[in-house]
């Protein structure tokens, strides 16, 4: 299928992604109890919520690596509920997953090529263009082209994960906690780049613990709790919503330079590591 | 079933067998590799081996002569006086059966089945002739595995209708189970277990219906040095109970003629003998004696010939099987094989073929003879186990394969092996 130029937002007013009543379970434990959300073309939409609220689960379900127990996912007017994960990538949905998921044994260049994997019929020129764009966004990756992904530092790996996702020239970019485990300064940089990509026309669904930063940059946001969407609204408005402030921005989260710095969430691949481990028992046991 | 009838149709050699009789031969396994479409053209002698012949020509295992422990040729008596299971047709009995124990499934099943089928021929003749004495053969599968056999043995002992046992088939399982049978006082008449030790354990119920490995090995060793005049022989053994025991006797009897520099050991299941072949090639012997089974003997002889080793290949009953010829092809020709078992006369082979839809194999005739002896005992009115042992102990008579008379230990009084040749 031909890919519309991502730089040209779809002209129709239809949402690009529409999820209705999505429920997802891990074995007998239901993690999402029927959530609905939409993302319009060209938007930057943020999902925030406590730890374990189901944000990652939502992202994985959208990407198709978790099955829905009920509900529907519609992408670009097409029902993709039953579509296989790798086909969704071809359809234009790509994710930079929680915990980055850099292929440790591949070089930076090969990792980026993996992002381009699903784009079967592209011309060489298209590929070069995508690569050039990524390298211009993250010059550090160009420097380290031949380095193995696994030996990159945390921040570099995060850049690589985002860059790799961009290589797919996605219509919808899913970013799961891109700031996790990064130093405050890198976080700033990552957020700047996210805004930039979005302004260049890519639709983004972003999951963040760093609510302050995320909300201030997004068009709209959903707040999740225990597997349900409990609130939605315009990003900047939610930022000042007292209940949101109390729960997600921390006590005394008055605006100001100091706190925006202080609220920078720390994280490692913790949550991802734990979830991944539970799901994929280590063979060497 | 479709399978075996197909095999008959496809295997010209099999048809040949039924006409000309078979010696120690016939398709041994269920998969006789009967794919050869060319009819065997050779044969014709009264006791030529049939079975699946190789498509290259008329190569088959043919009996040459019976030899004494000193290796000298023994004149054979005609089998015309052989005991007949039919008897006088007036026997009366009921609830008396014969047991058969051996590998009926598993890797070595073919050997057990040869024996079972031979026994079935005798039973069949007997039951047809004696309407008032219907004897069944009860089969017990040991897989040839000693532990398995110790589990099966009590079932045999507990079946009170079994007055005598044909088997066990292999030496290993015999060693493991004979205490059970001897304790139960059940006659154990083996048609194939040839390990010499078996008769040295003091079991009163155990009789061997054929020569042991000592007689076979000693005889062939003498035959090689005295009759054939070989000066230098490489003895190669596999790791089975049978192969090791046999090689020991052969090496000892050969004395100086056995060249220790090219003696070698191989493993069951091995298919590559390059090191051994190389070693033998370096020694350039007159003959290579192989103590083991055909599964290894066939590739071994092929590789010997492939490496241009011209020495005569000599082996024993483990190799005396049509499969050996089939798998080794031309490399097998000229090989000398012994067997304590006798060649099957033509009409036995025919009866066997008709009943079992397959040609007789090694030990089929011997099993037939031994079953006949037990049947004669039953016909004489014996219904309990102890009496049958006594009957066998004092038995003396001719069979299809050889004369049967046992000494105190349970060995045959006279046990002269047969020499066969692949040609």
């Amino acid at each position: 299928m031909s890919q519309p130029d991502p730089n040209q937002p779809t002209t129709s007013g239809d949402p690009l992604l529409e999820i209705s009543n999505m429920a997802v379970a891990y074995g007998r434990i239901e993690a999402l109890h029927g959530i609905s959300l939409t993302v319009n073309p060209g938007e930057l939409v943020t999902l925030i919520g406590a730890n374990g609220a189901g944000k990652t689960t939502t992202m994985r379900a959208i990407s198709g690596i978790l099955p829905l127990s009920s509900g529907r996912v519609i992408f670009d007017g097409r029902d993709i509920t039953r579509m296989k994960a790798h086909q969704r990538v071809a359809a234009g949905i790509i994710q930079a997953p929680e915990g980055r998921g850099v292929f440790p044994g591949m070089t930076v260049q090969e990792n980026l090529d993996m992002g381009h994997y699903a784009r079967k019929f592209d011309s060489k020129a298209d590929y070069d263009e995508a690569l050039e764009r990524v390298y211009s966004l993250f010059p550090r990756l160009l420097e380290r082209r031949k380095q193995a992904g696994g030996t990159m530092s945390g921040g570099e790996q995060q850049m690589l994960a985002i860059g790799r996702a961009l290589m797919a020239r996605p219509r919808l970019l899913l970013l799961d906690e891109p700031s996790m485990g990064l130093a405050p300064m890198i976080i700033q940089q990552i957020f700047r780049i996210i805004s930039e990509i979005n302004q260049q026309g890519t639709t983004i669904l972003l999951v963040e613990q760093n609510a302050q930063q995320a909300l201030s940059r997004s068009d709209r946001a959903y707040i999740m709790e225990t597997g349900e969407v409990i609130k939605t609204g315009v990003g900047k408005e939610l930022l000042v919503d007292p209940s949101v402030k109390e729960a997600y921005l921390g006590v005394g989260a008055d605006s100001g330079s100091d706190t925006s710095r202080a609220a920078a969430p720390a994280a490692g691949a913790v949550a991802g590591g734990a979830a991944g481990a539970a799901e994929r028992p280590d063979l060497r046991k | 079933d479709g399978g075996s009838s197909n095999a008959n149709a496809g295997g010209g050699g099999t048809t040949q067998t039924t006409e000309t009789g078979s010696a120690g031969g016939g398709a041994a396994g269920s998969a006789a590799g009967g794919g050869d479409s060319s009819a065997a053209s050779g044969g014709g002698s009264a006791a030529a081996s049939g079975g699946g012949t190789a498509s290259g020509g008329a190569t088959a295992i043919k009996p040459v002569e019976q030899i004494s422990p000193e290796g000298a040729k023994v004149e054979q008596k005609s089998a015309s006086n052989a005991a007949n299971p039919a008897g006088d047709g007036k026997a009366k009995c009921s609830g008396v059966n014969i047991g058969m124990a051996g590998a009926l499934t598993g890797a070595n099943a073919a050997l057990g089945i040869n024996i079972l089928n031979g026994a079935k021929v005798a039973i069949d003749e007997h039951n047809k002739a004696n309407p008032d004495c219907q004897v069944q053969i009860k089969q017990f599968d040991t897989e040839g595995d000693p532990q398995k056999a110790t589990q099966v043995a009590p079932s045999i002992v507990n079946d009170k209708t079994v007055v005598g046992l044909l088997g066990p088939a292999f030496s290993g399982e015999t060693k493991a189970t004979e205490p059970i049978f001897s304790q139960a006082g059940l006659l154990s008449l083996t048609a194939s277990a040839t390990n010499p030790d078996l008769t040295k354990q003091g079991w009163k119920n155990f009789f061997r219906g054929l020569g042991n490995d000592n007689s076979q090995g000693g005889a062939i060793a003498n035959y090689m040095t005295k009759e054939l005049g070989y000066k230098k022989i490489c003895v190669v053994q596999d790791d089975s109970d049978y192969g090791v025991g046999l090689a020991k006797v052969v090496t000892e009897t050969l004395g100086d003629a056995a060249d220790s520099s090219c003696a070698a050991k191989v493993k069951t299941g091995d298919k590559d003998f390059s090191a051994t072949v190389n070693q033998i090639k370096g020694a350039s012997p007159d003959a290579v004696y192989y103590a083991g089974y055909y599964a290894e003997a066939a590739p071994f002889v092929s590789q010997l010939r492939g490496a241009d080793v011209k020495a005569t290949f000599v082996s024993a009953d483990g190799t005396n099987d049509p499969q050996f010829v089939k798998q080794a092809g031309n490399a097998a020709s000229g090989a000398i094989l012994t067997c304590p078992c006798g060649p099957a006369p033509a009409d036995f082979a025919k009866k066997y073929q008709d009943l079992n839809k397959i040609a007789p194999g090694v030990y089929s005739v011997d099993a037939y003879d031994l079953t006949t002896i037990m049947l004669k005992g039953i016909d004489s009115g014996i219904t309990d186990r102890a009496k049958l042992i006594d009957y066998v102990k004092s038995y003396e008579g001719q069979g299809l394969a050889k004369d049967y008379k046992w000494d105190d230990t349970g060995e045959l009084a006279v046990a002269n092996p047969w020499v066969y040749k692949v040609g």
Partner: protein
Amino acid sequence: MSTPAAASGKPQARADQPKPAGGKEKIAIGDRFRLWWNSLSRPTQWAVGVPFIILLALLPVVRPPGISTVGTDFGGVMAQFGMIALIAIGLNVVVGQTGLLDLGYVGFYAVGAYTVGLLTSPDSPWNQTGDGGWLSAKWAWLAVLPIAVAITAISGLILGTPTLRLRGDYLAIVTLGFGEIVRLLADNLDTLTRGGQGLSQVAYPRLGESDTAMNGVFAAGYSNGGNINNGVWWFWLSLLLIVLVLLGVGNLERSRVGRSWVAIREDEDAAEIMGVPTFRFKLWAFVIGAGIGGLSGALYAGQVQFVVPTNFNVINSMLFLCAVVLGGQGNKLGVILGAFIVVYLPNYFLGRTEFLWWNINGNAIADYKYLFFGLALIVLMIFRPQGLIPVRQKLMTYGRQIWLAARGKRTKFDDNPAGSDKPGSTAAAEVSR
């Protein structure tokens, strides 16, 4: 945390706990059984357990038709089951509890059997039962038994010391190699072991000698004329040893040792960093597993009175492993059940002429027994990947105390135990309560 927590006015602390999907959840039979078992008091457990074991012991005496085997002696089958059950318990310590994949366990079985064989068979140059030997013919087997266990345990130590550094599948292949090496040595060192000729007339316990049983009840030929034969006696002996070994292994499991094993299985690095001397405990697991394997091997040698290398090939290692995984890795009772299936199934159809309501030709089927066995393995694994009785080990000596404290509140299995989560409940977790 609906009921108790909310009722007592505690804050809803674990709002991030997802609620279970649906309400009705099937509980596997094994779990129901465990739940029921756990709810019994200690004396009741004994009152149920002891008669059960006695019943089991009587099985080959009664030989219920339909259960008893036809083509082979049921007593003999049960004796083999007893030995494989011991093996499974030993292997379970290594594979199930400690998580070390051992594909060469048959090697220990062989070492045990050959120790007995070499010391008591008249065929062996090391025979000690004859003239000048230090073993009296009557007590030889019993005297050699502890030696066999000790030597096997030492062989476990010798194998384990250099190789337990290896992780996962590397250990698996090394142990597989070890198993093969043991068998090949037994085959090749024929001046000692008589190679493929095997060692015969291995000693066995001379117990219960009488006029009817000249060599005692364990002798190969023994039968009381009815159902009780030497196989049954060997089964009883194995059963006794199984109970003893189970008590021992159970004690270990509910102790620092068992916890260390499971911790190593779950996450070896984390265990080490939590202060577990991992190498030492892995070695212990290996040594204990080996010792139990050797014990079983000694039983085998005694029962069959004949040892040859062919009985100790790789396939047997695989079958032992099948018993463990089939029954449920880590669960002692499970692996015993697994051992039963592995031994019983191939024997069941032998010579059988009817199965349930169908007439069958047992001997024809017997040809296909390993085909069916293979299929059964695949199917069982697909439908019950966690084994028939999945793992749920208890790792604390006084864990029952906690269990009762938990049950004190809720005695029945609740279909909706996690409680409901009302939307809007605060996500914050309370630290102090």
